[in-house]
């Protein structure tokens, strides 16, 4: 289920469904998620907490909790079946084909190993044998770490959040991946640092011809940086389109309400329209459209048949009454 011009898709996810099975019940975290990332583009995956955006990324790289089970769907990356291949093939993909950077960089780094050596480990995994140290320093330069030689021996807790994130980016770049997944890379950093790190990610992606999947809850951030945006709600992808289309002509009611609830420009407080209700309980039995309960365009037939998922001129929408 994809638009006609998805040839050249680097990553193709089709109808991915995933659930968490545990004592409290089964959480249907993802349902029929389909999206693709083209070579060299930056796709923003936007959603609130609980929307399933991070779960999607973790599922791709098979770094999920033991309680997670993929119940349907496929994910193809450069001819490799990510969900079905064996462990050895997966190790080949991780870091080399697809790299990932996380929120809270300091927590994602080994606290007792100097950061420069961590980069060297990543380089060796990527197959760089001799001269790993020089290559590591070169990477640190590439991510604009001033005074790299001195910072090489530093431990993560001696570095600021922004610096740690730069180290993470250097680690991710070590094997020259074709796709970078950035899971909320700037959340938790200072505002001015956020801006600088986002610029760095965009710059290195451009230079390396790398595609980027930017996972964020900040639609404005995605709007500023990404070529296309996919919006998720409660485990469903509800809309995918070029950034300008999403921001100026959103078709899904949730996307429209999301835009209206974000502070933008010279908006006054009274113009801010919050979205009523809350996320549905993903353990309960759910109607075909999971936004229906909060949707102002809800009609009786929304709960009847399956959720229509359509592509129209490179604009995807999952709604019966957009």
């Amino acid at each position, binding site marked *: 289920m994809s638009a006609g011009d998805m040839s050249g898709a680097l990553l193709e996810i089709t109808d991915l469904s995933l659930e968490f099975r545990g004592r409290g019940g089964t959480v249907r975290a993802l349902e029929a998620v389909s999206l693709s990332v083209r070579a060299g583009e930056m796709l923003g995956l936007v959603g*609130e*907490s609980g929307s399933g955006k991070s779960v999607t990324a973790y599922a791709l790289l098979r770094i999920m909790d033991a309680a997670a089970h993929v119940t349907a769907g496929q994910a193809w990356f450069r001819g490799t079946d990510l969900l079905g291949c064996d462990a050895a093939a997966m190790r080949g993909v991780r870091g080399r084909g697809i790299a990932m950077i996380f929120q809270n960089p300091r927590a994602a780094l080994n606290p007792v190993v100097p950061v420069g050596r961590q980069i060297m480990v990543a380089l060796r995994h990527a197959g760089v044998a001799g001269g790993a140290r020089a290559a590591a320093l070169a990477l640190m330069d590439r991510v604009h770490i*001033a005074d790299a030689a001195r910072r090489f021996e530093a431990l993560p807790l001696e570095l*600021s*959040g*922004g*610096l740690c994130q730069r180290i993470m980016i250097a680690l991710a770049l070590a094997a020259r991946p074709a796709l970078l997944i950035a899971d909320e890379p700037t959340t938790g950093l*200072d*505002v*001015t*640092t*956020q*801006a*600088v790190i*986002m*610029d760095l990610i965009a710059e290195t992606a451009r230079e390396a011809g790398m595609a980027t999947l930017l996972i964020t*809850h*900040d*639609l*404005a*951030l995605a*709007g*500023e*940086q990404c070529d296309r945006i996919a919006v998720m709600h409660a485990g469903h992808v509800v809309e995918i389109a070029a*950034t300008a289309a999403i*921001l100026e002509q959103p078709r899904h009611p949730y996307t429209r*309400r*999301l835009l209206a*609830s*974000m*502070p*933008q*420009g*010279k*908006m*006054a*407080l009274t113009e*801010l*329209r*919050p*979205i009523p209700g*809350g996320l549905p309980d993903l353990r309960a039995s759910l109607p075909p459209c999971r936004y229906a309960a909060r949707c102002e365009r809800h009609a009786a037939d929304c709960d009847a048949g399956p959720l229509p998922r359509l592509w129209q001129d490179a604009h995807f929408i999952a709604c019966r009454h957009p």
Partner: protein
Amino acid sequence: MTALLDIADLRCRFPVRGRKGSFLHAVDGVSFSIDRGEAVALVGESGCGKSTLARLVARLIDPDSGQISFAGIDLVAIPARRFADDPARARIQMVFQDAGDSIDPRYTARQAIAEPIRGLTRQTRAGLAARVAEVAALAGLPEALLDRTAHQLSGGQKARVGIARALGPAPDVLILDEPTAALDVSVQALVLRLFDDLRRELGLSLLFISHDLGVVRLLCARVLVMYLGQIVESGPAADLFDAPRHPYTQALVDAVPNPARRGQRLRITGDIVSAIDPPANACRFVGRCPVAIARCRSEAPMLREVMPGRQVACHL
């Protein structure tokens, strides 16, 4: 009309462990005032001292020097460890950034909200229950949730418990320490609206501490920009964002993601400098400032009024 809360030349520094004679200047000569019913924002990034300033104004810690004057009462005269017994305690309350951490994990919402009411006001059993119900309603917290514990509540619900609790003793000033930082965008909007309603209906004064300019602009009439313990710019919110005078303010404004402006922006380089032993004779922003001139390194700029209501500490 005299301001409700008047802060004058407040200073607070902490000794640095292991380095004798070295001090971290968390708050270094801050002055401002808040009127009744006014919402003032304190904006800055990590390390600028805004959390310390919040705790100084809330009288949880003591300043080294300076004045905090509330409705004519000199608050500095009462040491922080005795302030809990003072009648003024009820009049300044705080909403915390991490709502979950600020509620005792064993307490239900009802118990958490009741605690300050019980501790600071005289109420009968019935009066207490009524007041809890009243502030819970004000904060938009449904009655049914009152008997849940913190881990059974969502982020937005926990935030409302924190707000209801702060409203209990009927304060005049509410210090909001990044109250929406941990919340989803849609919940954030609701909480901001709530603060504005409370401000107008109850005549509350708000000191809103945040690093998020987009949010601050919506709620607050005046903004103070803080950097390394000092206020570098202050003025009406709209003016500050449309025409910032200090390079740091400009950088903060530019850092807010704005899809409409994918081009030229002021980006500050380098890392945040620490507030330990800052130079006395230079601008503290000089290492990161893209438009620094020679004078910036030899003379610390003073906060001066460039227009009525607008102050800037910059040589340019």
